[in-house]
C-alpha cells in the first residue's frame, strides 16, 4: 500500500452522505464521566451487601501450618471468616493450560490457598464483614502460622537441579518451551560479514489501572442465579468460567460490566480473589464486594514482561540482514494464569522477532519458568515490546557495526510494500503491510535529516541527544487461532443486534465492551452511517451477558475490526428491512429509496419521503394499515469472525528524540512520532488517542516501571510512590500519522489500533538512548533505562 491510498477506501454502505466513518466525532455519553456520574464497580452498593478483605501471605513460598480464625470471627461487624478448605466445597480449582501450546503445564490453583502459598500476596483466608474497614480490622486477628520455604526468584536458576521445584507434581519448574528453526541459520551466520549479539533484559512491570480490580458478586438463592458486576474486558468468558467452577449452568450466571477504570489486559483474566468473591456470595447467599487496594493491586494484578532474551543478528557489509536468532527466558510466577495462560507472551516473542524483515533465516527458543513471584500474564501488546526491542536493537547494533545509518539498514531489509501477501519465517501470514510507506512518512514528519544535523551540532556543545527508530508488526483481530483452538471458551466472534424503536431511534446491543477505548462510539458511528440516522439517535448497550449477543469482548485489538464489522453487517440488514417496509408504505421499491437524516428519502433526488419516526409508528401501532403479507422486522442481528487470516497484522514505525544528561543519567524525552497502519480508520481522533496512550505505557516501561523483588520474593516497591509511572510532566508530545491498508477480509476493512503504541515505544527509546551514548562507546540493552543504569554504562558510578 502506498501513500496515495492514505484516505479511507470507498465503502458502499459507509461512504454515504453524512457518514461518520473517518470523522473525529466526540464519544457519546462522555458527560457522565466528566461530571462524576459514572458507575464503576467501586461505586456500587446493593442491599445486604458485605465486604471481603483477604488475609494474604507475607511469604513468597511457605507451608501453611495452621490458621486460627476464631479471634477474627468475634470482631465487630464480621460476618464470616473463610479458609481455602471451606471454600473448596463451593468452587473447584483450575489449571491454566491450552492444548495448542504443546507441553504447557501448570498446577491446580485454588480460589484461596490450601496447605501452601506460592507468592507473597496469595490469599490464605477471607474475612467478610459489614464494612470494608471492619473486615480490615478483623484481618489483623486471623492468626496464620507458616513454615517458610526457599523461594525461587531468579528465573535463570529456576531450572537448576539445586533449585527447589515449586510444584512437585510437575517434576520441574519449566512451564513451557518452544523452539523454531527456519531457513539455514548456521550457514547464514557463517556467511555473514558481521555477527552481533547481546542479552536484552526486560523488567517486570504491571498495569496500574487507576481503578483497582473490583467485583460485586450477588448470588440470589431464590432465583438460583449469580449476578457478577465486574470491570472485565470479557463478560462471556467470566460467565463461562464462573459457571464451570461453581457447578452452575451458564444461564445461571449473568455478568454485568459498567464503567471500568482502566484495563489494558489487567482485567481480562480470571483472578483467584475474584473467584473467591463469587464463591463467597454463593456460600453466604448475599452480595459480596471486593475492591483491591493499591498494595493488593501491585501484589496480585498480573505482572508483565520479565524476560531475559539473548539475541544475535548476522549482517553483510551492504546492510543485508542474513539471520536472527534468539533465546528467550521468562518467569511467570507460580501458576500459568487462567484461562489464557502465561505462555502466550513467550510464544508471541518467538512468532514476532524479525517480523518486519525479509530474512528467512530465523532460529528461536523460548522457555517459560515458574517462580515464587506474582503471576505474570498478558498485558497490553503481549510479547510485542519484547520482540520489537530485541529485533530493533539488534538491527541498530548491526548498523552501528557496519557503519550504516539506522534508516538505511531498515530500508534495505524491510519487506517491500508490493510483496504481499507473504509469510514470516515463523509462519505468520501478512495480508497487506506498508513498512516502507510508513517509514517514509515518519522521516518526513520528524524531519530526520535536520534532526541529525542538530544532533551533531549539539554534541559539540556536550549535549547528547539521540534518535531511535523502531519498526513493528502487531497482531490484531485474532480468530479462533488465539484461544479457541486450544480449548478455551473465549469467543473470537462478536455479535451486534440493532433495532429501530417506536420513535425512530436505534438501539444497538454489542458483545464488545468499553473501557474507554471508544467501543460505544465506533459502534454508533458505523450503525448511524449505514442506517442514515444521526449518532445521537443510536444508543449502544454493552457489557451485559443477559442483554448482548454472545462474543469475545474487547482485547487483543479486536473491538473495531470484529465488533465493528458485526455492527456494519447488522445495520445493513436493518436498513434493508426498513426500506422494504418503506417501499410498501410509499408504494415504491427499496431500490428507489435510501435513508438519510433520520428519514427515508428518494435515492435519486434525496427528497424526504417518510420520517423514520413515522415509519416506526406505522409498524408498531398501525400495522393494520400495511399491505397484506408484510411482516416488518425492525430488528436485525449479525455476527462476525475472521476466517481467512488467523490474525490481521498491522504495522507501524515509531521514533524517539531525547536527551541524556550524562552527569545525572536522566533521560528527557523531547518528542515522539508514530506512523501506524490500522486499515480503515473509523474515528481518527480515537485511533490517535489509543496510539498516544499506548506509547506512554511503553515509555513507562522504557524509563520507569519495575516491580522490584528481593531474593526472598518480597515485592519491595508495591506502592505508587516507589513504583514510578509516567506523569504529565515527563511525557513528550506525540505526533501520530497514518498509512491506510484496509484488510480485504471484512467490508469495514478495520484492523486494531489499541496496542501499536505500546509495541514499539520502548524499542525507539532504547535505540535513541544508545544513539545518544554512541560517542561514549556505551550500549545498554536493559529496560527500564534508569539513571543508575545509564551512569553505570557511562562508568560514572
Amino acid at each position, binding site marked *: 500500500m502506498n501513500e496515495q491510498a492514505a484516505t479511507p477506501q470507498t465503502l458502499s454502505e459507509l461512504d454515504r452522505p453524512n457518514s461518520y466513518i473517518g470523522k473525529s466525532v466526540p464519544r457519546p455519553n462522555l458527560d457522565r464521566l466528566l*461530571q*462524576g456520574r459514572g458507575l464503576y464497580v467501586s461505586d456500587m452498593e446493593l442491599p445486604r451487601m458485605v465486604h471481603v478483605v483477604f488475609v494474604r501471605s507475607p511469604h513468597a513460598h511457605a507451608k501453611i501450618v495452621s490458621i486460627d480464625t476464631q479471634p477474627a470471627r468475634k470482631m465487630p461487624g464480621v460476618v464470616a471468616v473463610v479458609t481455602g478448605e471451606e471454600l473448596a466445597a463451593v468452587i473447584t480449582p483450575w489449571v491454566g493450560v491450552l492444548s495448542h501450546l504443546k507441553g504447557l503445564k501448570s498446577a491446580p490453583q485454588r480460589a484461596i490457598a490450601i496447605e501452601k502459598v506460592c507468592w507473597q500476596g496469595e490469599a490464605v483466608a477471607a474475612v467478610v464483614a459489614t464494612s470494608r474497614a471492619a473486615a480490615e480490622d478483623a484481618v489483623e486477628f486471623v492468626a496464620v502460622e507458616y513454615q517458610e520455604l526457599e523461594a525461587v526468584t531468579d528465573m535463570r536458576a529456576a531450572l537448576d537441579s539445586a533449585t527447589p521445584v515449586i510444584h512437585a507434581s510437575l517434576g520441574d519448574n519449566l512451564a513451557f518451551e518452544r523452539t523454531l528453526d527456519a531457513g539455514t541459520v548456521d550457514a547464514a551466520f557463517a556467511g555473514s560479514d558481521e555477527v552481533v549479539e547481546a542479552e536484552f533484559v526486560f523488567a517486570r512491570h504491571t498495569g496500574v489501572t*487507576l481503578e483497582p480490580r473490583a467485583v460485586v458478586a450477588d448470588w440470589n438463592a431464590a432465583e438460583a442465579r449469580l449476578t457478577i458486576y465486574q470491570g472485565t474486558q470479557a463478560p462471556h468468558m467470566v460467565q463461562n468460567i464462573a459457571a464451570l467452577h461453581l457447578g452452575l449452568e451458564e444461564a445461571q450466571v449473568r455478568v454485568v460490566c459498567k464503567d471500568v477504570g482502566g484495563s489494558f489486559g489487567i482485567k481480562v483474566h480470571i483472578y483467584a480473589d475474584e473467584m473467591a468473591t463469587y464463591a463467597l456470595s454463593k456460600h453466604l447467599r448475599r452480595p459480596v464486594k471486593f475492591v483491591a487496594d493499591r498494595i493488593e493491586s501491585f501484589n496480585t494484578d498480573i505482572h508483565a514482561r520479565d524476560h531475559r532474551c539473548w539475541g544475535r543478528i548476522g549482517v553483510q557489509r551492504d546492510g543485508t540482514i542474513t539471520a536472527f536468532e534468539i533465546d528467550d527466558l521468562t518467569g511467570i510466577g507460580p501458576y500459568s494464569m487462567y484461562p489464557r495462560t502465561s505462555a502466550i507472551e513467550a510464544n508471541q516473542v518467538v512468532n514476532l522477532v524479525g517480523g518486519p524483515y525479509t530474512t528467512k533465516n530465523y532460529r528461536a527458543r523460548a522457555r517459560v519458568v515458574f517462580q515464587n513471584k506474582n503471576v505474570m500474564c498478558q498485558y497490553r501488546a503481549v510479547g510485542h515490546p519484547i520482540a520489537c526491542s530485541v529485533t530493533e536493537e539488534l538491527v541498530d547494533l548491526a548498523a552501528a557495526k557496519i557503519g550504516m545509518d539506522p534508516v538505511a539498514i531498515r530500508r534495505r531489509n524491510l519487506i517491500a510494500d508490493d510483496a504481499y501477501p507473504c509469510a514470516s519465517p515463523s509462519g505468520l501470514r501478512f495480508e497487506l503491510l506498508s513498512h516502507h510507506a510508513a517509514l517514509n512518512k515518519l522521516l518526513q514528519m520528524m524531519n530526520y535529516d535536520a534532526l541529525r544535523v542538530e544532533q551533531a551540532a549539539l554534541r559539540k556543545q556536550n549535549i547528547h541527544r539521540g534518535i531511535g527508530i523502531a519498526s513493528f508488526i502487531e497482531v490484531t483481530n485474532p480468530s479462533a487461532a488465539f484461544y479457541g483452538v486450544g480449548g478455551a471458551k473465549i469467543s473470537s466472534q462478536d455479535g451486534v443486534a440493532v433495532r429501530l424503536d417506536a420513535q425512530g431511534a436505534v438501539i444497538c446491543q454489542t458483545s464488545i465492551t468499553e473501557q474507554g477505548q471508544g467501543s460505544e462510539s465506533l459502534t454508533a458511528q458505523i450503525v448511524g452511517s449505514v442506517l442514515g440516522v444521526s449518532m445521537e439517535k443510536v444508543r449502544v448497550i454493552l457489557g451485559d451477558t443477559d442483554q448482548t449477543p454472545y462474543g469475545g469482548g474487547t482485547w487483543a485489538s479486536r473491538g473495531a475490526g470484529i465488533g465493528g464489522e458485526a455492527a456494519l453487517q447488522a445495520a445493513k440488514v436493518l436498513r434493508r428491512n426498513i426500506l422494504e417496509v418503506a417501499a410498501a408504505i410509499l408504494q415504491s421499491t427499496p431500490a428507489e429509496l435510501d435513508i438519510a437524516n433520520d428519514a427515508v428519502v428518494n435515492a435519486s433526488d434525496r427528497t424526504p419521503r417518510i420520517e423514520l419516526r413515522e415509519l416506526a409508528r406505522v409498524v408498531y401501532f398501525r400495522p393494520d394499515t400495511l399491505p397484506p403479507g408484510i411482516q416488518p422486522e425492525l430488528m436485525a442481528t449479525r455476527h462476525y469472525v475472521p476466517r481467512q487470516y488467523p490474525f490481521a497484522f498491522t504495522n507501524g514505525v515509531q521514533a524517539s528524540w531525547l536527551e541524556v544528561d550524562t552527569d545525572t543519567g536522566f533521560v528527557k524525552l523531547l518528542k515522539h512520532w508514530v506512523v501506524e497502519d490500522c486499515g480503515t480508520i473509523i474515528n481518527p481522533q480515537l485511533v490517535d488517542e489509543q496510539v498516544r496512550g499506548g506509547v506512554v505505557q511503553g515509555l513507562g516501561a522504557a524509563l520507569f516501571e519495575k516491580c522490584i523483588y528481593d531474593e526472598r520474593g518480597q515485592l519491595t516497591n508495591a506502592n505508587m510512590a516507589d513504583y514510578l509511572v509516567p506523569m504529565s510532566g515527563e511525557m513528550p508530545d506525540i505526533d501520530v500519522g497514518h498509512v491506510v491498508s484496509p484488510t480485504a477480509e471484512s467490508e469495514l476493512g478495520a484492523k486494531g489500533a489499541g496496542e501499536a503504541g505500546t509495541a514499539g515505544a520502548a524499542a525507539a527509546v532504547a535505540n535513541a538512548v544508545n544513539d545518544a551514548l554512541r560517542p561514549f562507546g556505551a550500549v545498554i540493552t536493559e529496560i527500564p533505562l534508569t539513571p543508575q543504569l545509564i551512569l553505570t554504562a557511562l562508568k560514572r558510578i
Partner: protein
Amino acid sequence: MTTPHPISLEVNGERVEAHVLPRINLADFLREHLKLTGTHVGCEHGVCGACTVRVNGEIVRSCLMLAVQVNGASVETIEGLSDSGEISDLQAAFRERNALQCGYCTPAMLISAQDLLKAKSEPGREQIREHLSGNYCRCTGYQAIVDAVEATARARKSRDKSRAP
C-alpha cells in the same frame, strides 16, 4: 477511636451534619456517607491524585485528609462543580478533544486543571504539564488533556477580552 464525632460542614453549597469515626478520611466520607462517588480513590496514599477535591477553595487530596478536619469547612466535589456550571467549558473541551478514556482520573483532573486556570490566565504547555503532574492518567498519555486545558485557557482569555470595556 471508635466514638463518632459530630461534624458540620458545607458540601457543594449544602449544609451537612454528620457523625464520623475519627479515622475515616474525607474521600471515604464523601463516597460512603454522602454517596458522592464522583470523587475516586486510586492509591489511598496521596500519590495518584484521583481523589482531589476543593476544601475552602484549595485543592486537596481527600484521601490524605480526615473527615473531622473539614468540620466547619466548605467542600466542593466534581458533582458540585458540574452542577454550578463553573467548569462546563473545560468539560466541553475535554469532550471535544477526547481528553478522557476510562474517565476514572477525570473528575480530579478537571479540578486540578481548573485550579491552574483560575491562577493563570494563559499557562504554557509546560506549566500545564507541571501543574497536572500530581494527577495520574493511565489511558491518555496526557497530551489530549494538555490540549484541552490549553484550549480552555485561550477561550477564556478571548472571552474575557471581548467582555472588557
